[in-house]
């Protein structure tokens, strides 16, 4: 029936998740890392933030399981459109398109239009929003209320199920801040329940200019944000770590060359370097349409290229940090002792230097995430971000930017994009904060 499609970004994303699990397994066996993560786990703030991030991650993962649908008729023909598991789950939201703007939970379009026949100008009835109410929309308010209350009920039940599901985990690791996890889940359920029910009959966050459901768009943006926030760091990490440590440990001309490299890259204003690179990459993509089978693949290539460009422009900071640290570690007595024992340079880097800078790397990964999510929005807004076909917070804001100037104002697309982005970034920032404190060796002493 369907043909699974593995986009490059999916592959990398899943690899990253696998690597995280592998890293977690390793960390559990390494004492100081386990201790640091346990400190993170004891923090209520961190656990609440982690729960939110996990919810976002779930959306991202669902949206990364791509496939192409088989076209009706015989033969091996598949639709050109690439969909994801999330699309399949949200088929209702995706397909219930209106003609243009409608406010959240509305039953009518947002602007008056001349109606068919000769009935003058009025707000046309929505095709889907509140369709179950029939022509008469008198019961609108009561219906909303009823659905909300029912939804909350569903939410509470779902939460209770989750609560039961968490029991074994809580017994296995009683020192973690499970209360914060459950409280966050409760809040999530309480919001998600009503949204779920309401979304069956309404556009919970309204529709945009071409009538697409804003809730659907916002959920689709999550994956883009996550990818940019994580893949970028992943791409730059090997170079930053290898070059930084090498420069600091080896010194001499190697140090000079590496320093020259990152000072030069660093001296080009970031946005301009990104702009120039994106422009050039656009030319490459446009002049080679034959490289990509589907539009999704092209958009995906551009997304990855953006991550790579952001990575290339952002590794210098971490590199410099690690160089300084390696310079310090090189003089430490245990490194001297290793040298006296005839341990080779490569082995010293691997055994003595790298493990002692891992906390810096870890902190950099989590600290960079939120900054990158925010940067994506700005870059897409300037027009040097993701492909216009890729749904992202930035492109949502970009398409909606003139809407505030309309009379009356259309605020919901912007508000939805900003609100989701805020929650995501806030959770990431709070989490990063706790991680930094937990891994900072000064704090643990």
């Amino acid at each position: 029936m369907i043909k699974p499609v593995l986009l490059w970004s999916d592959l990398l994303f899943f690899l990253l998740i696998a690597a995280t699990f592998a890293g977690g397994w390793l960390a559990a066996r390494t004492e100081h890392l386990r201790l640091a993560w346990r400190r993170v786990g004891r923090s209520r703030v961190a656990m609440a933030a982690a729960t939110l991030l996990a919810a976002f991650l779930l959306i991202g993962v669902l949206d990364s399981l791509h496939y192409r649908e088989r076209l009706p008729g015989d033969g091996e023909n598949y639709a050109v459109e690439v969909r994801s598991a999330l699309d399949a789950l949200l088929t209702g939201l995706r397909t219930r398109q209106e003609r243009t703007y409608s406010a959240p939970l509305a039953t009518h379009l947002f602007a008056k239009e001349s109606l068919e026949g000769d009935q003058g100008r009025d707000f046309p009835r929505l095709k889907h929003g509140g369709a179950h109410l029939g022509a008469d929309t008198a019961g609108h308010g009561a219906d909303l209320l009823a659905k909300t209350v029912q939804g909350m009920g569903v939410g509470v039940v779902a939460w209770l199920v989750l609560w039961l599901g968490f029991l074994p985990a809580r017994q296995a690791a009683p020192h973690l801040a499970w209360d914060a996890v459950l409280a966050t889940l409760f809040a999530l359920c309480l919001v998600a329940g009503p949204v779920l029910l309401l979304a069956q009959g309404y556009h919970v966050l309204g529709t945009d200019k071409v009538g697409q459901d804003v809730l659907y768009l916002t959920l689709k943006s999550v994956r883009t944000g996550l990818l940019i926030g994580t893949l970028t760091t992943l791409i730059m990490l090997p170079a930053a770590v290898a070059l930084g440590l090498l420069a600091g440990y080896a010194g001499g001309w190697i140090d000079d060359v590496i320093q020259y490299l990152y000072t030069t890259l660093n001296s080009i204003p970031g946005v301009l370097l990104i702009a120039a690179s994106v422009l050039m990459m656009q030319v490459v993509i446009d002049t080679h349409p034959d490289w990509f089978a589907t539009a999704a693949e092209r958009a995906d290539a551009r997304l990855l290229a953006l991550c790579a460009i952001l990575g290339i422009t952002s590794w210098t900071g971490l590199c410099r940090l690690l160089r300084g640290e390696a310079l310090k570690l090189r003089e430490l007595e245990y490194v001297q002792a290793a040298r006296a024992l005839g341990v080779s340079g490569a082995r010293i880097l691997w055994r003595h230097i790298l493990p002692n800078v891992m906390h810096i790397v870890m902190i950099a990964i989590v600290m960079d995430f939120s900054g990158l999510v925010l940067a994506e929005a700005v870059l897409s807004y300037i027009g040097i971000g993701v492909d216009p076909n890729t749904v992202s917070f930035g492109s949502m804001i970009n398409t909606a930017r003139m809407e505030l100037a309309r009379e009356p104002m259309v605020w919901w697309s912007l508000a939805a994009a900003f609100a989701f982005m805020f929650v995501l970034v806030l959770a990431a920032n709070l989490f990063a904060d706790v991680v930094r404190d937990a891994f900072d060796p000064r704090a643990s002493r």
Partner: protein
Amino acid sequence: MSLPMSLLRVRDLSVAIGDALPVEDVSFDIAAGETFALLGESGCGKSLTALALMRLLPPAARIASGAVRFADTDLCALSEARMRDVRGGKLGMIFQEPSSSLNPVMTVGAQIAEALRLHGDAAARERVVELLAAVGIPDPARRAGEYPFQMSGGMKQRAMIAMALAGEPELLIADEPTTALDVTIQAQVLDLLRALQRRRAMAMLLITHDLGVVANMADRVGVMYAGQLVEIAPRAAFFAAPGHPYARRLFAALPDTAARRSRLATIPGSVPPPGTRHAGCRFVERCGEALPVCHAAPPPWREYAPGHAVRCHLPALPVLAGKVGVTEGNPCGTGGTVADAAAPGGAPPLLAVSDLQVYFPIRKGVLRRAVGHVRAVDGVSLVLHAGRTLALVGESGCGKTTVGKAILGLQAPSGGALALDGAPLAGLAPRRMQMVFQDPYGSLNPRLRVGEIVAEGLCALRLPGDHAAQVRELLAQVGLDAAMAGRYPHEFSGGQRQRIAIARALAVRPGLLICDEPTSALDVSVQAQILNLLGDLQARLGLAYLFITHNIAVVDYLAREVAVMYLGRIVERGTTEAVLRGARHPYTQALLAAVPRIAGGGVEARVAGDPPSPANPPPGCHFHPRCPRAEARCRASYPDETTLAADHVVRCHFPA
């Protein structure tokens, strides 16, 4: 215990950090004009006690209970604003690290003037110069305009003292005031403190870990252990007959001439961490005299003699036997002496260093050309025979560590030749020589298990055999439990870490161990354990040691030969006996005179000033600006070696 005219009266003072009480029920008095020394090893709570008196505890700590009366004021009851008048005005304080305790971006004069103004002295400028002159800073008017980094360590400590004196305090709290300084400078600063105290009739609370400093400075002594005062006594009584078993063991653990070449007494185990619940005496686990009651009930204060009180269950002051506290047997079967084989006749020395030079270029100008050199090591020659110990002595910055690293191959020499067993050597020789470093915390990688650390050399050199078994054996050899191989360094105390470091060095079976101040970061009782261990290992494995240190007492105890370094060169060398008992070079003599000894006699600051920079050594004899015997000839030429006896060589124009 209470003196009639006490200036400071501390009663049942306890300091809490979280649930733990790192200072508990401390009571003592200080009379006007008196010096009271608070003696204890690291972590015993002596510094916290001092900070609590000033109400300057770090944010995590607080005064849990107790009373502090100064003259007629209850310091604990004062408002923060009133307390500020007391600080600096009534109680002055100086700290251990002069370089970090002064504001780096304010001139010294401004920092002193600030204190003067606070305590109502308007004519600050002249007073600053006056104060600087009073603490013995030459050219005070110019020095007042300098920043701390422009001064030497001793100078900074003097400036700190001047600052503390600005408010004319009645009590000066000196928290390890000389620990960060070299001995010759320490002697100068102690001299100064004593003179100031006498002149100003100021009381002093001296906090230190150094029995020698106490012997030379204090009127009365309080000994702290694990957060409690365990003994209070007048100095003479204390040094004649220390009462508490802990204090007596401290004396026995001191390496000094008396104990030369016999095993040192050690205190087994380590100080219980703060937060431990104690049912009885805190010292009971380590005490040789423990009675059954010691486990059950906290010991009471007992007054053994007027003014001499001890917190112990022992009913009376025990007779101080000659062999107090020797708690271990003597495993090394050499009749209780540290083995130090006699020189084998004829065979080439294990290590021969001739004219070793290590220069670091000073680069200046647009093209960073070398315009000169820091001559860290400037023509050092040494000979070390197998199974023997040679001590390289000198103050910080004299180049002794660089010598060690250059011999080992960690630092490329600029000139000179090295030979091992007669064969020339360049670069590393990991299987022949190894090093034990100073800092027990920095010398073990915190991310590796002890087993991996010890096996490092075995793996790196791909040595044959079962590494795990060898690691177990090595750990046992240095007195550690083989089961500890799976643990991480942070679970070990400083002394245990140093044992691990020694095991790591021994793993590749070297014939020579270069020990770079291996005990200077350790407490006296732990230092004794490590010195004993080194002695045992030498006897058993026939190791030779190049022992780099600044601690004369350790040299005297351990080494057969000594070389004294000053500014990159060896100024005197010979047998320990000849050099330490019959020093002929003025610098060696000054060094020896500056060591505070328990036996009294007083420290003597024989040299003034600081060592010059090795980047710009004085012409002629490097020592002449500080030398009491210097004459015109000394300024003109560097003295050649004068051989005084077969094994005693000195570089001085006028060897005394």
